[in-house]
């Protein structure tokens, strides 16, 4: 366990390096908790289908070099259109304001590194950080012990942030494998509205392992949308934990679009803390070669009259491997819950696999909970229909797969994001076409 030893041995150097004013004790405790159990293995029910060995057996550099050679052109390629977005660019673990465009007004925006150096921020910070993240998980503890960069965004009451905020975590010019721990906090106060897009990119041939934790707080009648655009290269690993806590009458969406990355594990927890809450989770996964993408979701229906919708589509080529585990917990007081869960998969090659498992634990008696999972191949009759119109087999397949994935895109209201997903879909299916 190469990484495990490094984690234990590097911590005091890491803390010393940070020069932060607070949180050090909590970090040490978190490390101890992590150390007690170590990384989860395949014996752990939650990691039964996802072997982390290829991540944990490698050695990593914990202190990435700051210097980078990312050009303006390379950045432009990642942008979804400059004028319609704000963007926050972290490179090699540091915020780069010169590449960012932060026009957010009337909202409190801080980078974590700044915030933790300022004692005045301690109170605000402690009010939120690690309050909804599960404290018993290896990766959340590891993240608390080691997180270094990320952002804190608080949108005050009734403020609507018009431009979606695109957050980039970039890594470049690292000779050795590099380990990053990113942390995000999003607080959307009553009646406020915001949309965030998150992407991670490794530009090197050396490996990057990112352990990311995000906490989202959506207050009364507020709306938060978070889109994860996972399109990293073949030498990147991502383990993500996102926790969203919602108060009454609020609406929160987390969409996860997974095209790239060697191994991606997404963990998504929705916690309901009021009535009349709506939660949406959509996912499109298209992977190939020996990629693995694992979605673990959990919705905690703790209160009555709330709704949750999960719609995950997976397309698997070559020897790729998909995992879906969707948990829905309905507390005995959560009457009139409406929980919907759907996971549909298409396996394009014989070597591709999907492990899909819906898991519903319902303790209330007046609820509507539905779930379904399917695994199939493309419909031959549909394929023939398109080919008989002169569309080649490959393109006909792509059209049908687009149609299959399409309803998981329905609630994206950012057109350039939709266009980007369509483009990535075409790329992944190796066709040149617009849908």
């Amino acid at each position, binding site marked *: 366990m190469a990484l495990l030893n490094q984690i234990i041995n590097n911590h005091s150097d890491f803390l010393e390096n940070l020069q932060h004013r607070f949180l050090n004790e909590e970090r040490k405790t978190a490390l101890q908790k992590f150390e007690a159990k170590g990384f989860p293995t395949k014996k752990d029910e939650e990691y039964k289908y996802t072997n982390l060995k290829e991540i944990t057996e490698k050695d990593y550099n914990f202190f990435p070099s700051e210097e980078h050679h990312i050009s303006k052109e390379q950045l432009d390629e990642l942008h979804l259109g400059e004028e319609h977005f704000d963007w926050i660019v972290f490179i090699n673990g540091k915020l780069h304001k010169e590449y960012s465009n932060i026009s957010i007004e009337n909202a409190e925006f801080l980078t974590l590194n700044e915030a933790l150096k300022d004692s005045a921020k301690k109170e605000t910070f402690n009010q939120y950080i690690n309050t909804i993240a599960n404290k018993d998980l290896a990766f959340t503890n590891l993240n608390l012990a080691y997180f270094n960069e990320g952002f804190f965004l608080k949108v005050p009451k009734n403020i609507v942030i018009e431009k979606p905020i695109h957050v980039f975590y970039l890594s470049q010019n690292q000779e050795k494998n590099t380990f990053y721990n990113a942390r995000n906090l999003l607080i959307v106060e009553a009646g406020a509205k915001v949309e965030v897009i998150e992407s991670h990119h490794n530009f090197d041939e050396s490996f990057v392992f990112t352990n990311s934790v995000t906490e989202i707080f959506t207050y009364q009648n507020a709306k938060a949308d978070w889109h994860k655009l996972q399109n990293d290269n073949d030498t990147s690993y991502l383990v993500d934990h996102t926790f969203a806590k919602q108060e009454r009458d609020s609406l929160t969406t987390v969409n996860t679009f997974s095209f790239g990355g060697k191994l991606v594990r997404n963990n998504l927890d929705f916690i309901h803390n009021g009535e009349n809450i709506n939660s949406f989770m959509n996912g499109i996964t298209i992977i190939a070669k020996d990629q693995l993408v694992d979605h673990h979701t959990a919705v905690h229906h703790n209160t009555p009259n709330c709704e949750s919708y999960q719609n995950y589509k997976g397309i698997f080529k070559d020897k790729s491997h998909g995992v879906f585990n969707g948990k829905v917990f309905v507390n005995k007081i959560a009457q009139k819950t409406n929980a919907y869960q759907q996971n549909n998969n298409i396996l394009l090659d014989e070597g591709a696999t999907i492990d899909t498992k819906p898991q519903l634990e319902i303790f209330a008696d007046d609820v509507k909970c539905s779930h379904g999972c399917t695994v199939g191949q493309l*419909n*031959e*009759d*549909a394929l*023939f*229909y*398109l*080919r*008989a*119109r*002169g*569309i*080649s*087999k490959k*393109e*006909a397949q792509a*059209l*049908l797969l*687009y*149609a299959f994935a*399409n*309803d998981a*895109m329905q609630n994206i209201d950012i057109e350039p994001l939709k266009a980007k997903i369509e483009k990535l879909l075409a790329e992944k299916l190796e066709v040149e*076409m*617009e*849908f």
Partner: protein
Amino acid sequence: MLNIKNLHAKIEDGAEILKGINLEIKPGEVHAIMGPNGAGKSTLSSVIAGKEDYEVTDGEILFDGENIIEDAPEERAHKGIFMSFQYPVEIPGVSVTNFIKAAMNENRKANGLEDMPAKEMLAEIREKSELLGIKKDFLSRSLNEGFSGGEKKRNEIFQMMMLNPKLAILDETDSGLDIDALRIVADGVNAFKNEGNAVLLITHYQRLLNYIQPDFVHVLANGKIIKTGDKSLALELEEKGYDWLLQ
């Protein structure tokens, strides 16, 4: 244009369905194939269009003198064969307009032509859709998704007119249509028809033939064409059924 000689075909690993079909269609002609259920009518159209579920065990299909049996469905489409489906497939998220653009340009590409300029394409779409009484919002809807039976068939004819094939095979295009929709579809086919192309109608009922005048009517039963006549044969079939021919 189309010359089918002694065509035998079976379902993959299954029973023989076509048992020696001979059929010649020349430019400018309209042919109708009628026959009882299970005669092999839809199999014949699928085999001409290249559906891979069927295996041709004997005979040949010549199109413009070239045997097309080994061609993929899209290659046959590129050569000018069009088939309108009895059950068109629903494709959510792909609009009628985008689909027809993709199909048009794929066919042009295969024939060594550049993509059709967007403006020209739109004009073409407008002209053809107006002719078929297709409303504008229909064109931005997802292909066949939630379409009524009549809308699906009208959309098939619209695609036929846009793609302008040499040979149009209309498989049970009249089924599920009310009389108004039937007339619109027939008007479309009549507008498409010219001296250089040909139409093959596959139908159960004579009523479509009141609107589209066939030059030849063939009766297909038990995998073979058992009788060929002119338009009056259809009327005779309407009156007497198929039994008298099968004895």
